[in-house]
């Protein structure tokens, strides 16, 4: 940037936005005030391009305790138990520094959840990269996985599942999303409110440094280009040890009922942690920046207000409890400081070194944030792409195609990833990574929670509405095959540059698709996140909405289905609509090097819901349930054979088709009663290989390909 650029533009603000600040204040903003508006009104913090479209989501259900808008969604599990869930992206920071970017992403999503009063019990990661033949992508995958492991393992929250996708579209713009689930008793629920006048604001945790000044907000609100290197100094370093102490300290505060509200410090740091709780409570606040404990000397007011130093929380405490709060902080060996007092009226008044540095309406940072209705238009390339023919499979034997699929890093085993994550801590993980949804028991109850997270940029590129809807149905089915019924959805919308009408159209269509599916399944969206500007040198990523579905199994199946429970002599059935045979957007199309194209098979709302319910019921009776997704029936069936170490003979058509609402069942003949209107027997277990319509792979070879697909490329 040249020196002559006005400050507000250097801070990423448009002239119009600057004008409305002047209008709100009735004067020119002071530097600290301008800094606050610039971060709070950034795309990342204000959702200014997506807000009006997010209203489309169904968000109500009798079991919703807290919907979108708070730090995390909260749903009622019965018997006094609540679950808190949220998903976040850390795409741009992870490209700049994969280890720290991913690590601080984990730290951030954890804070969103324990801010609500819940103990974080599990994490799921959704990570996307360009192809692994490019060393840069191997470096990124390695750094991101180490970062998630390094932070998640050390902070003591297991990462029990996730999702990984490779596509050239993510070259230069990897996606790193993380979802967190927390558990609490009803009494522990806390909101991000500043409470009533007189309430004291106590800053807990890490000292404030110049970390990530404008980091998340600026990085996540502007596209990459040659300059992105110049943005590097704002890299933040995660400290899981500090976060672990912060979690324990906060949970003790909730137990002892010592806080009226809590707000984590994430993007926009103190600016957000003071203005948002005050805004929500309709009060004002006096803040003394000199009280903030700092890591570096000589920090200016704008720096203190914009710093994104990690592992910090703001607790709002009644005066009589302040001493006890400070004691608990020191017991857990974390720093704490009284930094503010809640006041009548809506004014946020901030002092630094004796000067008044900001005096603004607290609510204006959120409520008056710009709201854009950006132009949207269906890309004109859509028709051509959707008209592309399906790949011709006739030159290939089925076993050859299956070999290629099992050897694909996006389809093969993810053990190389999830064995770097502690996925067993807390002794809840009944079904962990490596199958469909994860199943976590709630000890001391009959209940268990199931989660699956799913995304598919290739499908959403061909049809964002159908693609996004199918994701919700797939995640719901992944949850159902563990014996759970879907309860709620969180979504993470990873898109390109919203200033392009095509990208806005993709966003709106995806939101429509997610909403349709949620309505069909009767589940609400309780939280989410939007990540725009995922483009590099003008090229946008495939539209990549990611959804996480939470389900409740009550009771949990006594012996849950597992991919490893098939035995010789068992039969294999496929349940669901007859496949159309379409290969549009399929894994086969990709691994055969064909251009991503065609019109993906649409979802079927009533049918989708019925299939999910059927799977949830069957899960209490059968040995193996597995949903059909990437690689179609062939890969799903092979995964059962490989995990159970038993051969399998399949005889049916369209084995690589990925049509939605379908799952596999394995069990002894005659013991499983399936609705014969849409259940078909397709195979029998036994023998030394996986044989598809007479074309066979030795079981050992299939297992080796599947196991080595990822590690052999990372060596």
């Amino acid at each position: 940037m040249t020196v002559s650029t006005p400050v507000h533009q250097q801070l990423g603000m448009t002239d119009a936005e600057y004008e409305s600040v002047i209008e709100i204040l009735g004067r020119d903003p002071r530097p600290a005030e301008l800094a606050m508006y610039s971060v709070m009104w950034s795309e990342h913090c204000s959702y200014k391009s997506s807000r009006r479209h997010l209203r489309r989501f169904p968000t109500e259900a009798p079991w919703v305790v807290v919907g979108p808008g708070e730090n995390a969604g909260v749903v009622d599990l019965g018997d006094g138990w609540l679950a808190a869930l949220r998903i976040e992206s850390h795409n741009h920071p992870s490209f700049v520094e994969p280890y720290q970017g991913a690590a601080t992403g984990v730290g951030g999503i954890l804070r969103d959840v324990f801010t609500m009063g819940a103990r974080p019990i599990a994490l799921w990661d959704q990570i996307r990269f360009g192809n692994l033949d490019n060393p840069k992508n191997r470096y990124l995958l390695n750094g991101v996985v180490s970062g998630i492991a390094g932070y998640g393992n050390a902070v003591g929250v297991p990462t029990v599942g996730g999702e990984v996708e490779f596509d050239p579209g993510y070259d230069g713009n990897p996606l790193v999303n993380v979802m967190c689930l927390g558990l609490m008793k009803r009494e522990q629920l806390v909101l991000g409110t500043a409470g009533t006048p007189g309430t004291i604001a106590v800053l807990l945790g890490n000292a404030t440094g110049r970390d990530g000044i404008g980091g998340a907000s600026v990085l996540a609100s502007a596209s990459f280009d040659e300059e992105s290197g110049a943005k590097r100094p704002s890299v933040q370093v995660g400290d899981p040890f500090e976060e672990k102490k912060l979690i324990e300290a906060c949970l003790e505060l909730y137990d002892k009922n010592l806080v009226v509200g809590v707000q984590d410090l994430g993007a926009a740091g103190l600016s957000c942690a003071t203005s948002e709780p005050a805004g929500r409570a309709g009060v004002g606040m006096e803040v003394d920046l000199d009280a903030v404990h700092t890591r570096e000397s000589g920090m200016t007011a704008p720096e203190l207000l914009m710093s994104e130093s990690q592992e910090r929380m703001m607790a709002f405490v009644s005066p009589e409890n302040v001493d006890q709060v400070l004691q608990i902080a020191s017991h857990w060996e974390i720093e704490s400081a009284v930094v503010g007092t809640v006041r009548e009226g809506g004014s946020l008044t901030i002092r630094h070194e004796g000067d008044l540095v900001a005096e603004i309406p607290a609510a204006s940072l959120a409520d008056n944030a710009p709201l854009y209705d950006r132009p949207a238009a269906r890309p004109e390339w859509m028709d051509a792409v959707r008209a592309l023919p399906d790949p011709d499979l006739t030159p290939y034997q089925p076993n050859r195609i299956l070999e290629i699929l099992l050897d694909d890093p996006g389809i093969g085993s993810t053990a190389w990833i999830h064995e770097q994550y502690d996925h067993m801590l807390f002794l809840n993980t009944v079904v962990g990574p490596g199958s469909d949804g994860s199943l976590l028991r709630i000890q001391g109850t009959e209940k268990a929670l199931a989660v699956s997270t799913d995304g598919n940029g290739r499908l959403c590129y061909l049809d964002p509405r159908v693609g996004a809807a199918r994701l919700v149905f797939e995640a719901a089915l992944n949850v159902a095959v563990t014996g759970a019924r879907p309860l709620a959805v969180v979504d993470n919308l990873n898109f390109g540059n919203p200033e392009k009408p095509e990208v806005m159209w993709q966003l709106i269509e995806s939101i429509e698709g997610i909403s349709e599916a949620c309505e069909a399944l009767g589940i609400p969206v309780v939280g989410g996140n939007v990540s725009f500007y995922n483009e590099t040198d003008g090229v946008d990523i495939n539209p990549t909405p990611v959804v996480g579905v939470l389900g409740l199994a009550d009771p949990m199946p006594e012996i849950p289905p597992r991919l490893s429970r098939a035995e010789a002599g068992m039969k294999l059935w496929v349940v669901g609509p007859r496949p159309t045979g379409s290969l549009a957007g399929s894994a086969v199309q990709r691994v055969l090097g064909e251009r991503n194209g065609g019109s993906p098979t649409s979802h079927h709302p009533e049918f989708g819901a019925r299939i999910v319910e059927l799977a949830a019921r069957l899960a209490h009776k059968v040995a193996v349930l597995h949903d059909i997704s990437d690689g179609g029936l062939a890969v799903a069936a092979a995964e059962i054979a490989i995990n159970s170490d038993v051969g399998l003979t399949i005889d049916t058509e369209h084995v690589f088709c990925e049509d939605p609402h379908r799952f596999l069942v394995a069990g002894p003949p005659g013991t499983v009663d399936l609705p014969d209107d849409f259940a078909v027997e397709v195979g029998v277990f036994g023998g030394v290989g996986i044989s598809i319509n007479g074309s066979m792979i030795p079981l050992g070879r299939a297992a080796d390909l599947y196991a080595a697909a990822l590690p052999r490329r990372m060596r």
Partner: protein
Amino acid sequence: MKVRVDLTRRPEIADPQGTTINRALKDLGFEDVASVRVDKVFHLDVAGDDPELIRQQVTKMCQQLLANPVLENFEIEIEK
């Protein structure tokens, strides 16, 4: 030749480990310690006898693998 490569963390980047070690030293009664920073050193044994060539080579290694420019600077010393 023996080459020493010092990686030093950029000053503006937080060093949680150093902070924790500093706290531990204080707890042990070492009050006079103002700050602790933890860094890494590589000791390389590189074939060849032209210090300049080796320095160029090691510089490449640092840029490509050994150092993370986002977090740290590197310094190369040809020892003998």
